């Protein structure tokens, strides 16, 4: 579903990604861990072209992200084409980024209405169904500031799901939450994984990574240091840097 080959990304003179090679199979849940500044969030943002990569290649569902290869040359995609690619990829942010001037339901149906051109009746029915699925069937008419952090993040997940994406990206979805609210968000994500959604999850929740993840990737200083099954990486890390990191967080 996702394939990265030697992906590089610079911000000015700072090289944030120094050659990332990764592959995510359909229905796979990949968790990415690593210290802050290791480039894991940047890599996630490259997958839906919120950041442009400087070198290497990145494919989602067999198509290059943000470019078209034609006659041995890369051509940048038009804004419209990039938007079309992003429709297939759902993204959940650390700070939710719900639209504050819209109710939970309006947040969820906005993109289906304006981007996909779904009819209002159908969008509302589907949106209500999605909000029920994340356990917020009684909160459809609440504005984001009337919801707890955990509820807001669940609305954000429903909003991403409303576009029926093939792939879901999670950027530290529980890092901004009070500890007692983390569980409700992870439960929703666990349900998604069980339904066979392909997911890339940048997280600090080692328990979730161990239990739900199919693969665990440890990134540090812009490179993938180690990847493998979560059990193996967490209990028997092969690299010194992985061991040092895990000893601090476990």
């Amino acid at each position, binding site marked *: 579903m996702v394939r990265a080959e030697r992906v590089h990304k610079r911000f000015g003179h700072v090289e944030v990604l120094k050659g990332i090679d990764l592959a995510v199979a359909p229905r796979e849940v990949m968790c990415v861990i690593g210290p802050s500044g290791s480039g894991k969030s940047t890599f996630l943002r490259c997958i*839906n072209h*919120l950041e442009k990569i400087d070198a290497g290649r990145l494919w989602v569902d067999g198509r290059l992200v943000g470019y078209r290869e034609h006659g041995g040359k890369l051509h940048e995609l038009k*804004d*419209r084409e990039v*938007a*079309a690619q*992003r*429709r297939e*990829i*759902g*993204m959940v*942010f650390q*700070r939710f*980024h*719900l*639209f*504050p*001037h*819209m*109710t939970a339901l309006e947040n969820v149906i*906005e*993109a289906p209405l*304006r*981007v996909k051109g779904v009819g209002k009746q159908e969008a509302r029915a589907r949106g209500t169904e999605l909000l029920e699925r994340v356990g917020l069937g*009684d909160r459809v*008419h*609440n*504005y*984001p*500031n*009337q919801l707890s952090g955990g509820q807001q993040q669940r609305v954000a997940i429903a*909003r*991403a799901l409303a*576009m029926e994406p093939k792939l879901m990206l999670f950027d530290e979805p529980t890092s901004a939450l009070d500890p007692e609210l983390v569980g409700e968000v992870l439960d929703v994500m666990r349900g998604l994984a069980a339904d066979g959604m392909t997911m890339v999850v940048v997280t600090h929740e080692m328990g979730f990574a161990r239990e739900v993840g199919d693969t665990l990737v440890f990134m540090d200083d812009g490179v993938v240091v180690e990847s493998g099954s979560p059990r193996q990486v967490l209990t028997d890390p092969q690299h010194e840097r992985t061991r040092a990191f895990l000893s601090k967080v476990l």
Partner: protein
Amino acid sequence: MAADTTTRSAPPEEIRAVPVRHPGRWVAAAVIAVLVAMFVHMLVTNPVFQWSFMFDNMFSAPVLRGARTTLVMTVLAMVIGVLLGVVLAVMRLSPNPVVSGAAWVYVWFFRAIPRIVLLFFVANLGALYATYDLGFPFDRQVMDLFGFTGDLRFLGLNGNQIFTGFTAGLIGLALSEGAYMAEIVRAGIQSVDPGQTEAASALGMSRSTAMRRIVLPQAMRVIIPPTGNETIAMLKDTSLLIAVPVTIELNFQLRAIGSRTFQIIPMAVASILWYAALASLLMIGQHFLEKRFSRGFGARETRAQRAAREAREVGSTH
């Protein structure tokens, strides 16, 4: 156990303390009361005010027509100014340096020019060209180049007709307002969290949809209060239309009565009362607009939520 017994016993006696006295407050109130009394006394006793004359004349037909012109001019100039401001603000934030530079020059120029000077200039544009044509740029030169004579113009407007009276005033005020509104709208757009645009584009929204549906509605919360100020300033600036001149406007009409009858003060007071009343009217409109665009930012319960809560409460009592 001790905590249990205290919560079960009767609550302690309510505090009934002697309140602190504030003599300073009483003195200040007394001073203000005396000043107000003096002011009212002046209004009642000074014969120059000519109250009955003022009330008889401040609602005469030409004055009412002038008030209507002033209000219509204010609303039209603001509507055009706001639309112009949105376009200029979006241009100003464009990644294209020529587009953004053009918006900057516009704002710089029209903010630098006093409105009365601009109005006078616009009113005299008829002297610059007799007719203003719409057509292809440099049409005569291009036709010349290919050996033809003639032009490619499809609409000709008489300069002395458009740049006069109401239209000239409206053009001048709206162009000037566009510059101020551009800065207000830009501040509003920039006050919206960039995460909102990111979330919108992550959902596959185009730039223009994200601007229209996500960013601008949130920017409105920041844009409306200063726009209310601008509207009230515009109401007052319609009195500058004397520079065009537009004579069917409120201030001109009141002053005309004053100078015709030599009752300067009563008509000046009438002017004050009229503008205060019209400004209050606009402030009421602003209040409702602010309420509309603060959705999701207060703890206020919405209509749909109240209905849902009442339904729940009714359900639970049965």
